């Protein structure tokens, strides 16, 4: 019987599971990108609040334990614009 493979492909499934959990009922964040880069897992995207970013980070570290997690999650800017676009 062939022994099950472990290794890099297992990380890929863990990342897929994290994406599913991010899209699940609790977090409901579909706009977060999760990708392997340079031996680490990179999370990118924009979230409404700092609290949401912390929530995602906690979930990622739990799901990806043992892997290096790098986070480039921005908090959405809630400022009014200082310019408009003229459509003529």
């Amino acid at each position, binding site marked *: 019987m062939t022994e099950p493979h472990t290794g890099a492909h297992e990380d890929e499934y863990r990342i897929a599971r994290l994406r599913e959990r991010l899209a699940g009922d609790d977090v409901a964040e579909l706009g977060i990108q999760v990708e392997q880069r340079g031996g680490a897992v990179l999370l990118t995207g924009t979230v409404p609040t700092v609290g949401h970013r912390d929530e995602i980070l906690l979930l990622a570290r739990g799901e990806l334990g043992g892997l290096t997690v790098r986070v480039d999650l921005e908090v959405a800017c809630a400022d009014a614009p200082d310019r408009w*676009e003229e459509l003529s």
Partner: protein
Amino acid sequence: MSVATGPSATGSSATAAEDAVRVAAVGDIHLGEDCTGLLRTAFDGLTDCADLLLLAGDLTRHGTAAEAEVVAGEVRGIGIPVVAVLGNHDYHSGEEAGITRVLRDAGVAVLEGESVVLSVAGHKVGVAGTKGFCGGFVGRSAGEFGEPEMKAFVRTTRLSAARLTAALGDLAVGGCALRIALTHFSPVPDTLAGEPLEIYPFLGSYLLAEAIDSAGADLSVHGHAHLGTEHGMTAGGVRVRNVAQPVIGKAYALYHLHPDGHGGPAR
């Protein structure tokens, strides 16, 4: 495109052109119950720089009526008309009817295959809205074939597009000086640039663009594509703007439209 230096965040009364209809728009604000007041400061300044506010769906995070109360609190009484469509997040908990009711109680015109005519800035401005749905773009789209699930998927988009065509048609009959198509899903791939190509079919459908081009519009506004870009155009020449908040990077985007513009191809 021309970008002019506009009113300050504190609300200068300066305007670019006196005949312009000033449209503020944002989508994908994803407000949870812990987000009260997040956008209110910016929205309070809208009376100084905009004639109407468009909300392009995904207003809530989990799609609950309780979250819609937060959204309602952000826009209630801001002094200009507010028109919205819902997004996929707003359907997640099966409370879309409750969300619609909460927003309408706050004075928001919530559209799903419908239109509204506003008298703003001395003009009749019509907005036709639908959430829309996905399926992909010309040459790379899902077909109404095979399993019942697949047929239902494509028919959902087709129905939504048909209702958008009818709603825009109503506005043409009504003699609006400007017509705007408001959706959550994208009508064109242009504004998806930056998203993974593999997920384009889940971000919009050419059927929405076909509806816009066949009925005519001055502007198409959508959200949904967080990693996309702001500017696009339909095959028929209608300008498209992706106003997902992560894309525009502000509380809202501002567009000045002129009623004597080209007016869309099917006018």
